């Protein structure tokens, strides 16, 4: 196996991880600030992808499509927060799990009702399509590089937002002591809506970015949702830094495991069964990783609360 292939796979893992981070960031923020567990986060990812596909189909502009995905997911998030989610903050996790499970049903089948059962079309814009040659002669799709860059920029922006801005201070204060910041006169319900919409917008953007190279279809958010949960559990729920580290860890483990495990088993098994055993184990790998992390650190890598 050549070095070039290994580097390319690491880039792939990185790109996957960065997209997972966009999903996980919203989840972990919402949990950290409001103490809410939101299973319907994957639906917001889907909303973003569908909005982008609809706008791209109508206008032909990818940039407009991305803006639409941010706007639609943020709007959907804000509406859901105002109508449903804010009634759940004081409830236990069980009610939250159930209510957001119900939201998944509504979002998924509602989208199918609106857009039909067939996947929608969304493509990579011309100026980002095709491969570029990286130093060392590595051919790599430009769009995936762009995804890595966008994801890292957003991660940096998020860290800046939380560390340096007034909203960030309020968010951090909210994570430490919810009653206290209300007492200090911060409009807590507005803050909550804002955080939820921000998380939703990030998920929507991830959906649109990924939708351009994957299939825009109902239910696309659920596999990603479960991975995002794995990410925030590994990273420690409520920690943005944990989400970033967890996302990269999961992205790299999943990508590299899928490539190298079958090779590894080929060393001592027949090729056909090595492929099959390796592929099976690779699909379980991130869950094994998660169990292992939790055994050593029950609150995740950077977690401080339950």
């Amino acid at each position, binding site marked *: 196996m*050549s070095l070039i292939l290994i580097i390319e796979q690491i880039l*792939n893992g990185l790109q996957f991880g960065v997209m997972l981070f966009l999903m996980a960031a919203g989840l972990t923020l919402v949990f950290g600030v409001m103490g809410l567990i939101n299973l319907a986060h994957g639906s917001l990812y889907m909303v973003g992808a569908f909005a982008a596909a609809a706008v791209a189909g109508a206008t032909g502009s990818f940039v407009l499509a991305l803006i639409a995905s941010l706007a639609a997911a943020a709007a959907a998030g804000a509406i859901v927060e105002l109508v449903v989610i804010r009634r759940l903050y004081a409830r236990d996790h069980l009610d939250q799990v159930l209510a957001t499970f119900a939201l998944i049903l509504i979002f998924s089948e509602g989208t*199918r009702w609106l857009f039909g059962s067939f996947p929608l*079309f969304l493509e*990579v814009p011309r100026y980002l399509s095709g491969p570029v040659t990286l130093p060392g002669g590595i051919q790599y*799709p430009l769009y995936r590089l762009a995804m890595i860059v966008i994801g890292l920029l957003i991660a940096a922006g998020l860290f800046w937002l939380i560390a340096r801005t007034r909203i960030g201070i309020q968010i951090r204060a909210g994570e430490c002591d919810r009653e206290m910041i209300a007492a200090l006169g911060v409009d807590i319900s507005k803050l909550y809506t804002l955080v939820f919409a921000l998380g939703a917008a990030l998920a929507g953007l991830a959906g649109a970015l990924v939708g351009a*190279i994957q299939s825009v279809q109902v239910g696309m958010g659920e*596999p990603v949702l479960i991975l995002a949960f794995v990410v925030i559990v590994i990273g420690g729920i409520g920690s943005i830094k944990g989400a970033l580290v967890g996302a990269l860890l999961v992205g790299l483990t999943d990508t590299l495991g899928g490539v190298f495990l079958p090779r590894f088993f080929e060393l001592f098994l027949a090729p056909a069964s090595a*492929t099959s055993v390796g592929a*099976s184990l690779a699909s379980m790998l991130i869950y094994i990783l998660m169990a292992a992390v939790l055994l050593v650190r029950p609150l995740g890598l950077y977690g401080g609360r339950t």
Partner: protein
Amino acid sequence: MKPIRTLALATSVMALATAALADTKIGMITTLSGGGAGLGVDVRDGFMLAIDNAERDDIEVVIEDDQRKPDVAVQTSDRMIQSEKVDIMTGIIWSNLAMAVIPSAVAQGVFYLSPNAGPSALAGERCHENYFNVAWQNDNLHEAAGAYANDAGFENTFILAPNYPAGQDALTGFKRMYEGELADEIYTKLGQTDYAAELAQIRASGADSVFFFLPGGMGISFLKQYADSGVDLPVVGPAFSFDQGILQAVGEAALGVKNTSQWSKDLDNAANVAFVEAFQEEYGRLPSLYASQGYDTANLILSALEKADVSDKDAFRAALREADFDSVRGDFRFGNNHHPIQDIYVREVIKEGDVYTNKIVATGLEDHADAYASECKM
């Protein structure tokens, strides 16, 4: 209890009353909600088009959604057989649902005509006199792809499929016909949507061509990413990833790709021309492979009903076996195991105006029967 969505074709009470004795009741279980609903909708629409066209008032079709859940399918089938007393069943899209429903349905004396799934077990050892497959045995299209790979002069093909039984069958089917070398053989995760890692492997493998079986959203994702990766090898696959329903979602990325199918919109026979036109008129979209299979299934039933009453099981079975109907795919007959013997074509994805669709460029396999027929003692 649940109000049953019955599509009674009788136009008047009189007709119902007079036809009551000769009533044929068909139960259709197919996927109409959740993931994969597009396929079920197409089978249903194709099937109902043929039934409606026949304008017979003695046929009743009961349609139920299986949600792509095996347990729902099994229970619905039990109800159709036990409570509604259907004579014929059809509609199931997925092999795992077919395996759950068909053996017990035919054992209870019902005829089952498969409009899509063709698991190998039901073609071989577990074949049954009341079970007919009107589409294909699962391996067929992959075998044709293997044969095409030989014709096209591929010598070092990279093959991949999801890691589940149908995926394993697909690669087995391809290898059964393919004579060249394999650059590599890869199983991906079921439901996987990112193929960056596999594309890198393809690029590094030195392959001269790619064969893949990735149904539904997996195929859309793969093709989009393939087109964007700069890998420029010829691709071949079964029709499932290039069908009318999903081609528009793949878009330009699919242009020029070869795929194997027993049917195509441009097949030049009278039945097909009429079907394509009537389907578009009725539903406002181009028919898909699945719609053609639903349409053929209904026409097969209608042709047998012309010859025999469904209550005379032996006569009706014999009439089905003759397959005396104008299939939209051209020549069609059944082998000893009640699976099709048919031509499988190679299609190429083209653009007609604004619409992506397929045209036939070659014949992959002629008069092809499946590999399991000899295991069937019938």
